[in-house]
């Protein structure tokens, strides 16, 4: 079994520090490396958010810890906030961290199919991070063309006033994509080839399925934007005219290439979040996931649909207006597969026996928040309504509700839930609960009212709303939102403290503190170098909780009931 992993670990557990923690091929170490990078970026992204909010609420006053925010710098902040949060926080956290750490553990493998490739991808990602950080310091400053980098604004420096910022931004994105591309190859091959005996496709935990679907969607959608980025780099540096109408090109081309990737990307982030929610809910509700297969099929359908909805970002972009309704229809139809997933999650709660530890609270919070975000998505999906709310804060509020629900809340649920397995210690329960309630309250206080700001017509990415008469009514709201946003950011200290403190002095965790069924809990916390002393043999699906007539309310996947009953006989 798993000869591949064995081949790559013939020399067993490397002893020296570098091979063990820095240039490690161990998927668990790599996951932690991604986690470190993601948390670092999250801090930076949070700081940009604070500056953005400050400028909106108190335009042209000195922001504490920074000073005045010139309009150009404001655009750079907006650009970097989007780039960082989507590509350097959400993706590493949800895919790289949980995917790398859990896929091999959950399928009973010793490591990824290509451990060295895995190491390569984390180091490419690190390189991308360095390149992106560099862009802050080059003459002209960070890119300021928006995280969507629409040309011509991004194509000519005299338009943005930037220098190498956009070039570095493009290079960083290309590297980041390459890294996750290799990661996706690894995920898929690992799940195809290294499943433990008995781990059939339909016994895989939902999270693994979601990671795989996300990987496929990412790999099939990222190509055009890589090509598009190359073309944009050439436009900037070789004088080509792909996006310059004067030279026969067309700026709209970039928007199509970008969003053909950009929308699937959204589901690449959402699906793993659902996976985490379902894993956590099943455990803390002591109930099998309701409609396991339909959930998986629905996610596949959603992934498929995500390839034919991208133009709903472009209803008003100058795209042929006849295209709008077809894309509007496909977009709104997406509510069906996601609705099915959400209702199945709710159905999982029916007749359950819930205990509300921190992971459960975050999972439930994520569910509640996502429903709101999903429903507001229907407004944006409808072409006529989009005429008014496109590029307003309604859109901003909407995608923060959907993305933060699955990055922030689901991500935290996952961290609190798997922290014992990752680091061998429990996180502090009281601090965790405080963290949840503060986050939940302030999050809704920030992004709930933001919908009203959008309904008021406030455009995205304007640094000074007070320049517009028709925005006078929303100014008090903006101030309130900023206050709440600062409190939301501050309340994350509860997590930082909890994380660091538990890392060093948390209660030592048992192998299976939550009494879960999935394979990662059958090995010690943290797992040894090759995960399992003996390759586990799988006898059942991942969610056999509260089985009738079973003496216990859980049946681990590798629990051999026949052998057990034989052993029970005198």
């Amino acid at each position, binding site marked *: *079994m*798993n*000869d*591949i992993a*064995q*081949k790559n670990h013939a020399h067993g557990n490397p002893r020296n520090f570098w091979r063990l923690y820095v240039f490690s091929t161990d998927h668990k170490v790599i996951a932690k490396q991604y986690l470190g990078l993601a948390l670092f970026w999250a801090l930076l992204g949070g700081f940009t958010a604070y500056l953005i909010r400050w400028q909106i609420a108190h335009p042209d006053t000195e922001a504490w810890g920074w000073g005045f925010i010139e309009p150009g710098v404001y655009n750079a902040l907006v650009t970097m906030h989007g780039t960082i949060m989507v590509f350097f926080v959400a993706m590493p956290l949800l895919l790289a961290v949980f995917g790398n750490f859990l896929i091999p553990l959950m399928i009973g493998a010793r490591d990824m*199919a*290509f451990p060295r*490739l895995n190491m390569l991808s984390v180091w490419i990602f690190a390189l991308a991070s360095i390149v992106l950080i560099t862009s802050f310091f080059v003459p002209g400053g960070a890119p300021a063309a928006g995280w969507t980098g629409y040309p011509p604004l991004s194509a000519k420096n005299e338009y943005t006033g930037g220098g190498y910022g956009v070039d570095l931004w493009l290079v960083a994105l290309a590297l980041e994509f390459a890294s996750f*591309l290799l990661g*996706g*190859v*690894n995920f*898929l*091959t690992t799940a*195809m*080839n*290294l*499943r*433990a*005996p008995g*781990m*059939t*496709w339909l016994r895989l935990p939902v999270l693994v399925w979601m990671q795989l679907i996300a990987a496929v969607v990412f*790999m*099939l*959608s*990222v*190509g*055009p*934007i*890589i*090509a*598009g980025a*190359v*073309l944009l780099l*050439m*436009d900037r540096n*070789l*004088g*080509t*005219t*792909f996006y310059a109408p004067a*030279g*026969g*090109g*067309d700026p709209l*081309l970039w928007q199509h*290439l970008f969003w*053909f990737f950009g929308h699937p990307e959204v589901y690449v982030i959402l699906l793993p979040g659902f996976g985490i929610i379902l894993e956590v809910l099943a455990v803390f509700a002591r109930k099998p996931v309701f409609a396991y297969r339909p959930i998986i099929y629905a996610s596949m359908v959603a992934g498929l649909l995500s390839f034919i909805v991208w133009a709903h970002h472009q209803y008003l972009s100058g795209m042929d207006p006849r295209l709008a309704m077809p894309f509007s229809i496909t977009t709104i139809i997406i509510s069906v597969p996601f609705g099915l997933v959400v209702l199945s999650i709710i159905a999982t709660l029916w007749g359950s026996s819930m205990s509300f530890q921190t992971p459960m609270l975050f999972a439930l919070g994520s569910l509640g928040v996502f429903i709101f975000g999903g429903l507001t998505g229907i407004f944006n999906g409808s072409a006529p309504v989009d005429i008014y709310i496109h590029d307003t804060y309604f859109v901003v509020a909407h995608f923060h509700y959907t993305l933060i629900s699955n990055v922030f809340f689901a991500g935290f649920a996952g961290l609190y839930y798997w922290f014992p397995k990752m680091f061998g210690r429990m996180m502090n329960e009281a601090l965790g609960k405080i963290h949840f309630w503060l986050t939940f309250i302030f999050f809704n206080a920030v992004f709930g009212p933001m919908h009203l700001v959008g309904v008021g017509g406030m455009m995205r990415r304007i640094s000074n709303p007070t320049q517009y008469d028709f925005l006078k009514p929303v100014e008090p709201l903006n101030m309130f939102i900023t206050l709440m946003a600062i409190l939301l950011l501050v309340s994350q200290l509860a997590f930082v403290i909890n994380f660091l403190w538990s890392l060093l002095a948390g209660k030592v965790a048992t192998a299976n503190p939550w009494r879960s069924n999935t394979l990662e809990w059958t090995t010690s916390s943290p797992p040894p170098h090759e995960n399992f002393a003996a390759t586990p043999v799988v006898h059942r699906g991942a969610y056999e909780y509260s089985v009738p007539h079973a003496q216990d309310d859980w049946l681990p996947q590798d629990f051999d009931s026949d052998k057990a009953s034989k052993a029970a006989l005198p």
Partner: protein
Amino acid sequence: MVTNARTMDGSLEPAGKAGTWWFLSSEIPTFGGLLVSYIVLRLGGSGWAEASSHLNLNIALANTFLLLTSSMTIVMAHAAVQENDHKRAAKFLALTVLLGLSFLIMKALEYGVEIRHGFLPGSGIFWSFYYGMTGLHALHVFAGIIVNLVLCIQAARGSLAPNGHRIELAGLYWHFVDIVWIFLFPLLYLA
């Protein structure tokens, strides 16, 4: 459950092949997006055929021939390694590398000719696409050459795994690059 059966035998074969194919599955949209952009802009624009007529068809023909042949030589190397004749495999791989290199050299010459005639990447949308697509393709060829070179040395040294599976994987990538050229050639030179 085809793949499920494979779960049981842990030989590298399926893993490497599946991985390579997944990688190619993301390369297809990369070049696909490029070709699609070229096609729609060309159908909607004007003056493309005129610009294209300045290209040197003979060099392109020679290059097509080189790349097709290199595709043949690398499968020959694969066939050889399957018959466990690593020396012959090394010869064919060396041939493949040479063919690839001469493709790049020809391409460089072609660029030189065009630049001397004043057709730069900035000389219009057709030239933008010409340099963009052939450039990206050339990069892929270059990467393939390096891979093949490494395998060639390994095969010559006899340090290649007995099943020589890696040659097939390198071949998959190399053939894909060849297929891309198969479409670039008519799109740029003939149409």
